[in-house]
């Protein structure tokens, strides 16, 4: 067991971390009722992807993945802005940011 931690972490460890982060985010998206919490969970999932990109880039020696991760972070920021704007509008119209408050599509 000690030998595992003695060595520097390999690709598998990063991928496992990313998978765990993604799953936690997914669980949050599906289970949280507060839309802000759902937005934060989406951020977790996006960052899991970024970790994958950087990890593959680092272990293959190709910088393309890291460049791509920077773009991804910038895009995520934009997405958060839009997401929060939607939540603000939702609060204005429904007086609530609960995910279950919007069920206009119910059959």
């Amino acid at each position, binding site marked *: 067991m000690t030998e595992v931690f003695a060595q520097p972490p390999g690709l598998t460890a990063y991928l496992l971390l990313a998978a765990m982060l993604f799953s936690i985010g*997914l669980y949050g*998206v*599906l289970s949280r009722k507060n839309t802000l919490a759902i937005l934060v969970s989406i951020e977790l999932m996006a960052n899991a992807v970024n970790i994958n990109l950087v990890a593959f880039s680092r272990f293959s020696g190709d910088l393309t993945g890291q460049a791509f991760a920077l773009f991804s972070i910038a895009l995520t920021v934009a997405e958060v802005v839009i997401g929060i704007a939607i939540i603000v509008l939702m609060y204005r119209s429904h007086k609530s940011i609960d*995910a*279950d408050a*919007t*069920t206009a599509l*119910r059959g």
Partner: protein
Amino acid sequence: MLTAALLPILLPLACFFLLAICWPLRHLGKLAGAISSAVAIISCLSAVRLLNMVMSGAVDPQEGFTHTATWLVANGRTIAEVGIHVDGISASMLVVITLVAACVQVYSLGYLADEPEPHLGRYFTWHSLFIFAMGGLVLAPNLLQAFMCWELVGLCSYLLIGYYWTKPEAGHAAVKAFWITKFADMGLLAGLCVLYASTGAFEWDVRLATGTATLISALIFMGVMGKSAQVPLHVWLPNAMEGPTPVSALLHAATMVAAGVFLVVRAYPIFAQAPDVLLAMTYIGAITAFVAACTAVVQDDIKKVLAYSTCSQLGFMIAALGTGSILGGYFHLTTHAFFKALLFLGAGAAIHAVHSNSIHDMGGLIKKTPVSAVMFIIGAAALAGIPGLSGFFSKDIILEEMIHGGHWVPLGLLLVSAALTAFYMTRVVVIAFLGSPSEAVEKAHGAPIVMGAPMAALTILALVTGYAGAQLGGLWGGTIAFHVTPVGIAATSAGLAGVIYGVLLYGKGIAGPSSAGLRDFILSGPIDTFWRGTWDRGILPTAKRIAWTDRYVVDGAVNWFGWAAIKGSEAARRLQTGRAQDYAVAVIVGVLFFVLYGAVGG
């Protein structure tokens, strides 16, 4: 040539559309009638011009002039054509139609003068449509166009019988006429289908295998039996007398009912290949002539007498065609059209004078309305076959042909019918026009000139048409020559005997034939009873069963699918919760399923 041929039928069509679409004009009944009559007269004159062109040799009377336009194109192939075919047969028939139609329309202006204006407009609208339809039928270059116009004249007949639509009897009579002729037309339609299946066209003149020819001829003849009122499908014609008398004169005496005879004449190349059907025609025609003549003897309604007489005369024509005597049958059609139209118009004048259809309410009309009475008597004499008048010549030729064919039983029936014809016409003339005047007759008034003039025109034609036999025969590609033969003498004697017996019997004021039992049996309408029984016990229960199956089995299945769809959707709609997270779960489960499927199964 094309314009000359189209003019007589397209003018009435234009008039029909004008009156049908322009309703303020139609509601001015008298004006609509005047327009329609004027169009009918012009159409008649142009038909005469067309006949003159054919007679002068501008068109060969046998080969004819044909002009067709493509109709019903499918997959680049022409299924049928419409157009005109002018030859001796169609040109002369067109003159008969337009002439009688013009007379009848002018007559109607007087006869129906007291009708409400909008109704009168409607009447003339249908009349114009009828002239077009009948003209289209006789000029048809193929059987399909003939069938189309055949149905159109049937529609006009239905509409005009039901003219007095507030009277329940008129409505029933219209529906009865329509249904019975439609029933017969099922045969004609089936015949057309078989013809198309075996030749790929609707031509008049085709060579067929014997079996096919027999089948097609029999099916076409079924339609003819309905339209030309042959036993046992004749029961609609007496009821059709519920329509106005001029309608009876035009449709149910002179032209429409003769359409069946015309159709056989036109399609004779097909019939000639089916000797069995021709033999059946001879017998059916002769039986019709006899049965209808017997029935006519006991009728008290003047129009019913004439209706049964029409049936009987159509029987003569059909019998003649069955023996192969196209010229005889067609000649009788032409002469009959004029004198029977005259008789109906004369009967109309009598009805107009006394406001009753019963011959017993008339009596002694010759003193009050001498001119129309004399014209009626001339028509009756022509029908009875008095020597020198038109009916005499044409009836003689038919009987002569019977001898040539060796058909002794039909010949006997026709001779008896000829005697009966003379007898029942004498009965009507003696009771209604000679005899002692009844109370109604004392107040009777003469017919106006618009009624008298058309009758006079038809009287002249009833007098002279018989002498035009040679010319008409040449026009139709044969010879109509008159000989003095034993059968002719026998027929004339039979006719004269009928007249003399009638005068002796009714001149003394006896009410009817002595055999009261037979009289009641005929009056009870045995064939009507037969159809009524077939309807009540056969057709109606079967139809009800079919309706039940349709309503509960076929419709039931359809409705079950509808019900199942509604219930299924009501269950399925609960899947849509409207919550975004539920949809996200569905998406993720779906993606996972495909990923796992790819990992395991792929």
